[in-house]
């Protein structure tokens, strides 16, 4: 009987849970329905039309933010039209199948935002949230996934991502392509962020609404569309890296050991670090331990051109079972194998220009002799910005080696040199 009683209680609990679950689902559906109905008119599909063929080349979402017909979307949605205004124009399509032309007014390339406007849209604007919602509340992303028509995706607000330099809202829900540039609304219908990217499996990211408010204020202060978009983007990139490197270089870089060397520890919030070694491999003939740190930030500029990445990496190598010749054969193979952390094409950047030198730190006793490589390539559209790659390996021990490496994307010469100087001073084996 006791068993029956327990079973009965468990069943009751389960039923309760189910009902409870159901009621949550019910209320979410109800909210979603209301939000959808209330805001349908203010959410648009944004289409990039190829002037020559007259067909759409890219689609995304956008939403009305004020009574003057100002519309917010992502920079990456309208990028084609920003880069080649003579070849692409921007169009909107409302839920009521009304279409019209959009004019590009301003962009914030670092936060992946853009402002466009329509002359005769006359839709009710969506209110922007003033305060950050508490973590765990239900929020709703709206947009046009895969050109399927306006859709609402319920999810959870999980706060501002702490691991990226440019703040992004962590939204637990499925954003799909085409929803980019659409709003994510709180239960009260206020915009809390702009849909921007997804890491898959319900991990998605939004640009916080504060970044949008800042861009709107900048635009309204100027009260005119940006004339030279390339110059505007270049300036934003220069300013952003300047602020980022000033902050980073002012930090006191913490170190941690790797083999007998000391390496740069995680520089928060600029990078996150990972590490590994081959010590668990039975076939390994030598010892290799590494630590890799990489920024989460990744500024989209064009189809195959991104920037803003910071990456540094360290290797500690010991010959172990190998003789010195074999050890150096491996070391040389590893040394030859470094590539930049960002993608770029011929129309975006020049070729890398590299130099190699033997460097011996002069400020310490028994300095180690190292071989250092430095490569830089310049941006074609954005003056004063470079991608740089640095590599330094010790060459004075025949049975052990310490290799340090970094790549910086979209950095000024001054900041790259200052970073290299600090990096070489901190990451060392002596």
């Amino acid at each position: 009987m006791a068993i029956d009683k327990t079973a009965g209680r468990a069943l009751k609990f389960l039923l309760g849970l189910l009902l409870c679950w159901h009621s949550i689902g019910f209320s979410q559906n109800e909210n979603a329905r209301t939000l959808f109905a209330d805001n349908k008119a203010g959410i648009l599909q944004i289409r990039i039309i190829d002037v020559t063929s007259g067909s759409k080349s890219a689609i995304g979402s956008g939403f009305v933010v004020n009574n003057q017909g100002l519309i917010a979307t992502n920079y990456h949605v309208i990028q084609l039209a920003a880069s080649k205004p003579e070849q692409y124009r921007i169009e909107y399509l409302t839920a009521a199948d009304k279409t019209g032309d959009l004019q590009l007014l301003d962009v914030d390339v670092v936060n992946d935002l853009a402002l466009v406007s329509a002359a005769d849209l006359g839709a009710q604007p969506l209110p922007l949230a003033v305060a950050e919602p508490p973590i765990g509340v239900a929020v709703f992303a709206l947009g046009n996934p895969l050109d399927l028509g306006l859709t609402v995706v319920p999810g959870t607000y999980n706060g501002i991502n702490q691991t990226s330099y440019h703040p992004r809202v962590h939204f637990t829900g499925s954003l799909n392509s085409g929803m980019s540039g659409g709003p994510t609304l709180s239960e009260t219908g206020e915009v809390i962020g702009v849909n921007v990217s997804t890491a898959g499996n319900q991990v998605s990211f939004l640009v916080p609404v504060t970044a949008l408010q800042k861009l709107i204020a900048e635009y309204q202060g100027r009260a005119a569309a940006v004339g030279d978009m390339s110059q505007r983007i270049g300036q934003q990139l220069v300013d952003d890296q300047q602020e980022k490197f000033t902050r980073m270089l002012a930090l006191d870089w913490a170190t941690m050991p790797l083999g007998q060397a000391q390496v740069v520890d995680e520089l928060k919030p600029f990078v996150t670090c990972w590490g590994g070694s081959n010590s668990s491999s039975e076939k390994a003939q030598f010892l290799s331990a590494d630590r890799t740190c990489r920024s989460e930030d990744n500024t989209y500029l064009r189809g195959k051109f991104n920037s803003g990445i910071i990456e540094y990496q360290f290797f500690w190598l010991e010959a172990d079972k190998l003789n010195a010749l074999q050890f150096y054969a491996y070391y040389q193979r590893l040394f030859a194998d470094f590539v930049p952390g960002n993608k770029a094409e011929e129309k975006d950047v020049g070729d890398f220009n590299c130099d190699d030198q033997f460097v011996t730190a002069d400020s310490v006793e028994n300095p180690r002799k190292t071989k250092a490589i430095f490569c830089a390539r310049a941006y074609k559209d954005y003056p004063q910005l470079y991608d740089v790659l640095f590599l330094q390996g010790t060459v004075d021990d025949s049975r052990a080696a310490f290799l340090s490496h970094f790549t910086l994307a979209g950095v000024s010469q001054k900041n790259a040199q200052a970073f290299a100087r600090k990096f070489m001073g901190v990451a060392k084996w002596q």
Partner: protein
Amino acid sequence: MAVIIEVLGWGGKSRHHYRVDGPSISIGRGYQNDVVLSDSHISANHLRLDVVEGGWQLTDLDSLNGVEIIKNPSINSVSADSTSSEIVLADGAEIKIGRTRLRIIADSHPVDAAKELHRLEKDVGQLNRFSIWLPLLLLVLIVDITALYANSFVEWQWKNALSSILFTQVFLLMLALFWGAVGRFLREEANFLGHYNLILLAALVYSASDWFFGVIGYNLSAEFLIVAVAPLLNLMLVAVLLAANFALATSMLARQRWITSVGFVLLLLIVSVANQMQQWGEFSPYPEYFSALELPALQIGGGESVDEFILSLDDLFTEADQLAVKK
């Protein structure tokens, strides 16, 4: 005055010759002729040559395939309306009957001056010796295996090394066999071990120069020594090897040998440069840096300070700007 009938082989070289005395010479497949040839396209009694003023009068004896005059030094005697039965052949004339080429020469015909033997040929008896070949081969094998072993950083397995060693050694052997065959054909003298030893020696010099330039280039941070100077010197090494092979396998004069060898190497150079030209000016998203590393024991000198290094980067950025100028 005797007449010499030379049977010519490939390239106009004399295969063998007949010496015939008397005022009239008969040539044909029949055994009663003065010159008996076995070519089945030649008639039993093919032609007759009669000694006349200034040469030999040719008479075609109604042969099936006739007589073709290939070369006749006294052009004047070949008048436009003459038939073959009236032709007078001068000293050095060449004719073709059936499939056989013949040269008709007076025994007073001058011959080329004797060619001086190449030093290498004089010493060939020494180079063509087993006692030189064996240590050379062992040395090449040791260098080959050591290089493979020194470059292997995974668990050493003989079966993997063996295929690579075999490939190299078979290649060198084939090269020696090729030259041996050429010598056998052109000079009836293979000198196989001589060629093999030359090739092994060149392989050793190649390995040594490769290593030497690697170390010097690394220490001077001078990549061009490794990517330009060393390959050019190696091409010169190939030219020297070829010239020596020619000296052993052919009767070419020194000048001809060098022209042929250097010409061949230049051709190689042109082909490889043309091949690389395709990539010149092509954009690469990856940096090309001088990644060579050498053992501490092979290093000379120290390095510059971090400050000097950072300062030197100014020029690098300026050059990067120039590389990004839009065309």
